């Protein structure tokens, strides 16, 4: 279970976002909708331990990750969180398998890589360089890398942002299918994808929007 309690995030340009308290239950899927700049991606980054809030706590299974050291956050992220970035964060000169096996640097077991790729219809492309893949295929590689370690939490930041609706919908279908039983939090601005998630959160209502700090 993830609890967001009294969290506020200030940015370098002196703007800030205050978040209302939220709870994400384990094993459920959530879609965060909202206008650009309302703090959707920032929330995901704080849950993942990439960013730290100025105040408040982010409790994951009872542990306040906001108060943890960067080293602890890194360790938690690599072990428990599968993060799918909007721009994929793939090394384009490397192959699909190399991009997944990069997790081995931190001792992550990637032995399920082939079965995960198969479930995403990407097994035949495992030895292809990422630069030779289409946007939809790259997104699937990013999903495969995020879920290969069987994380408890999957965070997806605009997973369909770079794809057309048809491909985006197919990706979301696969993502929700493959994430069954795990906590899935996805950020999107496309409300047509809501039907694939257990809960829909309107982030415009959950934050006061950006304001000058």
């Amino acid at each position: 279970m993830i609890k967001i309690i009294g969290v506020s995030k200030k940015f370098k340009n002196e703007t800030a976002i205050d978040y209302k308290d939220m709870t994400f239950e384990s094993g459920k899927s959530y879609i965060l909708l909202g206008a650009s700049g309302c703090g959707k991606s920032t929330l995901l980054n704080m849950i993942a331990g990439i960013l730290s809030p100025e105040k408040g706590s982010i409790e994951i299974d009872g542990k306040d990750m906001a108060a943890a050291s960067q080293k602890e956050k890194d360790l938690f992220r690599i072990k428990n969180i599968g993060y799918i970035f909007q721009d994929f964060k793939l090394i384009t000169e490397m192959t699909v398998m190399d991009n997944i096996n990069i997790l081995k640097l931190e001792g992550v077991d990637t032995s399920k890589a082939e079965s995960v790729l198969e479930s995403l219809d990407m097994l035949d492309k495992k030895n292809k360089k990422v630069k030779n893949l289409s946007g939809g295929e790259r997104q699937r590689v990013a999903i495969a890398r995020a879920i290969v370690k069987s994380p408890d939490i999957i965070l997806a930041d605009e997973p369909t942002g770079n794809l057309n609706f048809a491909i985006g919908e197919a990706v979301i279908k696969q993502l929700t299918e493959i994430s069954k039983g795990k906590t899935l939090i996805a950020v999107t601005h496309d409300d047509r994808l809501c039907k694939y998630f257990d809960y829909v959160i309107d982030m415009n209502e959950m934050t006061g929007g950006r304001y000058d700090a």
Partner: protein
Amino acid sequence: MLKFALKNMAIKKVQVILIIVSIIISASVGVLAFNISSQVSDGITNNAGYYSLIVGPAGSKTQLAMNTMYFTEEPLGTIPYSVYTELKNNDKVVKAIPYAMADNYNGNSVVGTTPAFLEGKELSDGALFAENKTCQAVVGARVAKENGLKVGDTIHTSHSAIEGDKHEKGIVVVGILEESYTSFDRVVFTQIETLWEMHEHEGDEGDGHDHDSHGVCAILINTLNPTYAVQLASEYDGKIITHDEEAFTLQAVEPMEVVRGVLDEADDTKYIVFVLCAIILIMNIIVISIITLLNMYHSAKEISLMRLIGISMKKINLLYLIQNSLIGLVSTLLAFGASRLCLIFMSDYVSSMGVVLDIGKVYLPEILILLGIFLISVIPTIICTFVMAKRDSLAE
């Protein structure tokens, strides 16, 4: 980790190859400059140390030493053969070898001596000339190659380069020296009596010489111990002897001392070489540091990506340390190989100074230069990753 480091290097192969090539060029030039200057200096001194004393006519000590050891310059003149006989019978002397230089064969010097002068030299064909005969020659490898000579051929030496100035009497090639890349490769060696015969008994077949009526250009001597060399030097240096009512002033030089003197006089050259080596090394440091820093700068995006997916800075540091260590190691090893390859190519040029470059000769400073260059290629990585770890890109 190593496997991933290799894969990461493979995807940047052009960049990696450029780094390696630039390190190889700068490192091998530094190592090569040091090696050659050291080997030439050592080689000249070692050659000089082969004989403990040279006795010859008064004049330039350097000319006498260089003429007898490297066959360069003209002989100073002659001294009576009786000096050789006297020295050969001296109790302090282990070996005395008469030496004369006259004539040439197609531009190559002709040296008259005894077979003892060629002791230790390997022959590619034939045998050494006989001590009790005349008109036999052992030719240097280059002389044989350039003139198409083989054992059994007859050569005609000449006083000068003028066509038709050749001696009628021929000299039979009985042996060819193995190529040694030294000045020996360009000389024709024959009995000293052959030279006398050519100049005084032109056309005669006689082999019974009145040795004492002839002269030699120098006498190469090895003494029982170094003290005897000093004693003989003081005894013979400046000594005046009379032969056939003619006075001859002798000089005795210790070749090692002469060569050291020459090298000391060339101190400025040595200084320039060391200054050049220092400049090359400083350039190495700057070039390699810049290359490594640029490499790390270009990797910043990659590092940021790895941090986002959860790879710790410790692992990233280790990854880049392995990569740059591999680049440094491969570059320094190849630089060492390249410097040895250059030594092979430079060998011919240096052999004209009478020095054979030993490809296997490694000096401690060379190892230190290579070790330094290896460290230069690794230390900036450590600094960069340390700085990046301090200023974690995640926060940005």
